[in-house]
């Protein structure tokens, strides 16, 4: 499988060139965020000034990593994706307010997010669920962390510097979703199987 290399931050044009089925290798700074962070963003609406990271053009990675504190800083022990669908009710607003060009996780997301991707020029990237050490080894450095004390290791916002981090585009900015397509085709089979 031939992969496309993408460098963060992404522009809208970069995103529009990506299509469902493309495999990408990501380079640059991305940030993590999962259940608590999504709830916080939507309920508290922190201003961009309050957030210590520049989110413009970067990827929001649904990940609750295992991180170890070393004398020289943090080390990513394991860092695979978590199920994205749990933050479906929040993602639309986060995409439109905070400037992300990519949402990354596993399992895909729903109609609301798909519409937000199209309206804002953003893409959903599906990385490999469970491949936590393979993916941790593609984190060159933990750049910084926010909300560690408050949210804990798994729910904090980490900034990772990644190199050749693999993912597959499963929902693009053109309105296509591989997850919708597979759900539909598997439903036809389900009906046939259960009669």
């Amino acid at each position, binding site marked *: 499988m031939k992969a496309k290399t993408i460098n963060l931050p992404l522009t809208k044009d970069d995103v529009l060139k990506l299509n469902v089925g493309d*495999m990408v290798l990501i380079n640059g700074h991305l940030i993590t965020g999962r259940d608590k962070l999504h709830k916080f963003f939507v309920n508290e609406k922190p201003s961009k000034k309050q957030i210590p990271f520049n989110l413009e053009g970067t990827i929001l990675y649904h990940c609750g*990593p295992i991180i170890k504190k070393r004398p020289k800083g943090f080390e990513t*022990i394991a860092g695979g994706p978590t199920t994205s669908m749990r933050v479906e009710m929040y993602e639309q607003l986060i995409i439109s307010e905070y400037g992300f060009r990519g949402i990354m996780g*596993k399992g*895909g997301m729903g109609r609301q997010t798909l519409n937000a991707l199209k309206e804002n020029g953003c893409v959903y990237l599906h990385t490999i669920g469970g491949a936590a050490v393979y993916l941790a080894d593609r984190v060159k450095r933990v750049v910084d962390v926010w909300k560690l004390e408050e949210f804990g290791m798994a729910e904090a916002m980490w900034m990772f510097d990644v190199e050749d981090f693999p993912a*597959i585009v499963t929902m693009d900015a053109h309105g296509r979703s591989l997850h919708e397509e597979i*759900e539909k085709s*598997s439903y036809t089979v389900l009906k046939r199987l259960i009669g």
Partner: protein
Amino acid sequence: MLNLRKAIVELYRKAATSLPSDVKSALIGACKREKNNSNARTALSIVVENIRIAKETQRPICQDTGVPVFFVKIPAGLSQLNLKNEIIRATKVATKKIPLRPNAVDILTEKNSGDNTGSGFPVIYFEEIKGSNLIIDLMLKGSGCENAGRLYRLPIAELKAERDLSGVRKCVIDTVHRAQGKGCPPYIIGVGIGASDDQVTKLAKEQLLRRLEDQNRYEILSELEKRLVKDINRLGIGPLGFGGRTTALGVKIGVNHRHPASYFVDVSVSCWADRRARLIWGIQNSKLKIQN
């Protein structure tokens, strides 16, 4: 009991960092069956590589080291309370040492305990057995797949699922269809059938401890297990939900007697990272074995 505590820490390490040989072989086989250059094949080759690196570097296969679920088979004379305390102490040590991700969150304060212990956490089931071996099975159940499980009360009109094994089959296919790729397929499915909801959920989880090659002792269930693997793979959801030939590696069904008015079916879903390990400790000869 100090040695036992150390042994339980090693049991955690075994379960978190290495996959049972049957699951690993099944994943390698599934990878070869996917089409060349497909996303499904690429994904599974990364999965297989991840299993290798995790074992080599002794790091957890998946960052979600899950809810630890213990099935303890205890010979007469050993104290359950002492064993429970040892498991809790070992859990704290393992969380720091391996390390595991702290996953125990207080419902009321929303605080993470930081060491994977708390009210009802880890989950521990005890059962007294004959003989002089203490057997501890540990399953690290990731929550992506735990959330994909479902409990059914038959009959269910929408599925045309009646109170029979054909109805059970429909429930299992329905669960996997609803899960799609959200719980990290290829899945291993445990099914429990019986009289009460609390009993069948445990029974379904217990089925996930069976090795893939394990034959059901009831011929009719053995056939249903095989048929269900084929059915599920026809859905085409594929590895990680990218579409493809393998959505399930195995289905295991357990049955208890039911009440005339009840027919509970629980379907427990395991992700491909079906992390289980077993500790066997000879009480008399102090022989210790940890395997998966």
